[in-house]
């Protein structure tokens, strides 16, 4: 009977357990609630470290929502239970406020959270007033560039810049974009923290823990030395140089040779722009206005010229070619262009594997650099000195820009002198001030330069999604159902003007056609780079049926070796597709070796095309030159620290009193247990009277 009862009891227990459900989660994990976001990290140059790092085991701070300046004053002047983690909206994320938080020290402020509540934000740029202030064109061994005067903020290239990207913070900064996550934080703050501030030190508070510990310190010289150090037993890497790829393509294919001598008869017009952008937070920042617009224009110019001038043989000078260049890492002291200049000096561009003759400075007819075009109604053509070729190009540009036939209504002015925008051309001018560099740049009007908010909204982009053919040129009066004032039309207008002026330069004849750049190409281009890599244009420029891109825009930060390199990859394929000639006679099986490449093309049917694009390495020469003087300021020295993880989570931090009580109780119990054991072992006979002594059972040792 008893046996049956037992069995029944066990079954009952098992049944109860199965209905109740087993929760295998650990208590430790139940204490925390993860928060999704992006972290600020540490970058280093030849002299400084910038960015943020948490402490080794993670920085903890009590949440405090900042709505007004008074909230900030409260935290800084009379924090009841420091350290705190202020939740700051973008309009209060200013240089003054951040520096005050920094000066308060990690004992008062241990974490800063930036929340995506941008309603009251009017500007947000963390770049310097003079981007690339310590590189570019310099005079008389000066450490700063001559092209921008940082003391006269109103006349700088980024007058909204706070320069926070170049500050070193003793606390981690975490950006939380998702509204749900922000609500989670606010709810926790309201429930536990947002009342009776005087008793903060006496009760449990909602706190956040951020882990973003950075391995590198001091500057690039120190961390590169430690990384390359032979005694480095741990094998730890402290930092990696910023490294990526420049993408280039030529209008006409170059003839393969085995010779490695410069062919002086070959002439190039360089049309260039910047490929990369940056922001304070890992993996974020689209750079829509600060650099993507110029890349779109470069792509459109290349495409239009390719359509108008399909063959070099019909030109007056068949040895004349156009070289399209997209430089990577320009946000960090012109990494890409500095390297290209270095490669051209050492006759290493293009690389020998391309089997073409090297291009040297004597081959360059002139360089047209496309800078930022924030306001296309106010474009200037910048040159260092007034030269006849520059005058001629300006005259050609204006002839089309002002022409009533096309109705672009753009006026391009000349600007001669040292007031040159921070673009790639500066690397060329720095080597030789006589270098024929012309820079197309609009008056700076971007309030979100190099920031997470330089996005779709900043450029007012709306995807038209017409599913029409974007590879053909469009008639000048056909807007393809896109608004005349849209971003697509602005890009169409500027790129048509540039392409027409270059057409006239190359052919010696005025452009008479009605065909202009297709606004749909710009439409598709921006959709791919601002909204999703899984897009028609990227699909058409890949191999047929290759895996689709992720439904996120490609990362455009230069990153390090082994980084994503998405944007250079896509730009490479795009240049390949848009600047290539179809080879209908080559079957798919034979279309495998570059320059031949098989593209999915417009409707995914697939076609073999003869391409001209390639990569060059964008790694600063500072990392190639042996015993380079890191403080010389000659080349970019930017590196990125390594880290093991980024994580953020919230939990209830017990009060100090609570913690002390628990510890004291623990110590008391520990001491009592010692006393108890001592008493028990000394009085064991009393307690265990009946039992024989523990050694009684053992036989006595035999006497030796």
């Amino acid at each position, binding site marked *: 009977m008893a046996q049956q009862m037992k069995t029944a009891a066990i079954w009952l227990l098992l049944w109860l357990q199965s209905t109740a459900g087993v929760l295998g989660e650990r208590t430790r994990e139940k204490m925390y609630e993860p928060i999704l976001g992006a972290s600020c990290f540490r970058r280093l140059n030849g002299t400084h470290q910038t960015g943020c790092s948490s402490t*080794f085991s993670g920085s903890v701070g009590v949440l405090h929502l900042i709505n007004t300046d008074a909230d900030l004053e409260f935290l800084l002047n009379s924090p009841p239970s420091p350290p705190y983690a202020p939740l700051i909206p973008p309009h209060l994320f200013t240089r003054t406020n951040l520096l005050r938080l920094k000066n308060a020290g990690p004992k008062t402020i241990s974490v800063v959270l930036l929340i995506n509540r941008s309603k009251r934000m009017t500007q947000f740029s963390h770049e310097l007033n003079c981007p690339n202030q310590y590189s570019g064109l310099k005079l008389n061994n000066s450490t700063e560039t001559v092209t921008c005067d940082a003391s006269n903020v109103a006349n700088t290239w980024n007058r909204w810049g706070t320069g926070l990207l170049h500050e070193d913070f003793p606390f981690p900064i975490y950006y939380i974009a998702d509204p749900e996550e922000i609500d989670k934080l606010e709810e926790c703050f309201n429930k536990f923290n947002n009342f009776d501030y005087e008793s903060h030190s006496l009760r449990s508070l909602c706190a956040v823990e951020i882990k973003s*510990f950075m*391995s*590198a310190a*001091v500057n690039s010289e*120190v961390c590169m030395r*430690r990384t390359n*150090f032979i005694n480095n*037993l741990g094998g730890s890497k402290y930092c990696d140089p910023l490294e990526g790829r420049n993408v280039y393509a030529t209008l006409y294919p170059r003839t393969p040779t085995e010779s490695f001598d410069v062919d002086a008869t070959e002439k190039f017009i360089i049309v260039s722009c910047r490929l990369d952008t940056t922001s304070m937070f890992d993996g974020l920042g689209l750079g829509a206005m600060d650099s993507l617009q110029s890349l779109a224009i470069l792509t459109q110019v290349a495409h239009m010229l390719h359509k108008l001038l399909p063959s070099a043989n019909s030109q007056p000078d068949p040895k004349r070619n156009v070289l399209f260049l997209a430089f990577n890492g320009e946000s960090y002291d012109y990494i890409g262009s500095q390297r290209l200049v270095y490669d051209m000096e050492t006759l290493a561009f293009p690389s020998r594997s391309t089997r073409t003759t090297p291009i040297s400075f004597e081959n360059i007819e002139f360089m047209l650099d496309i800078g930022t075009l924030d306001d296309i109604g106010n474009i200037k053509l910048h040159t260092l000195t007034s030269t006849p070729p520059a005058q001629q190009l300006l005259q050609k540009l204006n002839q089309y820009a002002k022409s009533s036939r096309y109705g672009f209504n753009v006026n391009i002015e000349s600007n001669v002198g040292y007031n040159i925008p921070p673009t790639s051309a500066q690397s060329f001018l720095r080597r030789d001030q006589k270098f024929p560099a012309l820079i197309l740049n609009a008056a700076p009007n971007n309030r979100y330069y190099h920031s997470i908010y330089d996005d779709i909204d900043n450029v007012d982009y709306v995807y038209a999604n017409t599913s029409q053919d974007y590879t053909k040129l469009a008639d000048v009066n056909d807007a393809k159902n896109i608004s005349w004032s849209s971003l697509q039309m602005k890009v169409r207008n500027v790129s048509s003007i540039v392409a027409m002026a270059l057409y006239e330069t190359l052919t010696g004849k005025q452009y008479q056609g009605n065909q202009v750049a297709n606004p749909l190409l710009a439409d598709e281009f921006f959709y791919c780079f601002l909204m999703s890599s899984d897009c028609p244009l990227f699909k058409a420029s890949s191999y047929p049926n290759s895996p689709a891109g992720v439904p996120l825009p490609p990362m455009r930060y230069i990153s390090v070796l082994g980084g994503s390199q998405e944007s250079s990859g896509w730009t490479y394929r795009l240049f390949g597709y848009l600047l290539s000639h179809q080879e209908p006679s080559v079957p798919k099986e034979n279309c495998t070796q570059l320059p031949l490449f098989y593209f999915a093309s417009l409707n995914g049917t697939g076609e073999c095309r003869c391409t001209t694009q390639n990569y060059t390495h964008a790694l600063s020469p500072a990392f190639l030159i042996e015993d380079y003087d890191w403080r010389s300021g000659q080349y970019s020295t930017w590196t990125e620290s390594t880290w093991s993880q980024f994580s953020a989570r919230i939990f209830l931090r017990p009060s100090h009193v609570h913690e002390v009580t628990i510890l004291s109780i623990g110590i008391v119990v520990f001491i009592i247990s010692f006393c108890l054991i001592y008493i028990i072992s000394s009085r064991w006979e009393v307690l265990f009277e009946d039992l024989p002594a523990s050694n009684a059972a053992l036989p006595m040792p035999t006497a030796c």
Partner: protein
Amino acid sequence: MDISKAPNPRKLQLCRIYFLTGFAFLPFVWAVNVCWFFEEAFRKPPYTEQTQIKRYVIYSAIGTFIWTIALITWVILFQANRAAWGATADYISFIIPLGVP
């Protein structure tokens, strides 16, 4: 090894070997020597070899003391100045801490 069971000349021989080995930049051997033979040198009733053992123990103790002072001085000096010494400090380190100068 139980030293108390060894004959006296063996004790002296061991103590001398330990003392001499210490000169090969092994201060810890001297420290062991002091601990091991302290009883023999100072607590045991006198015997012939004891004076010599006593001498070795005292010399080992002095050696240990000097080494300790020297090492502590070096550790303090190095830890305080590691960041300031820059490349030199890195070259004489095996493990460089993360995230600090």
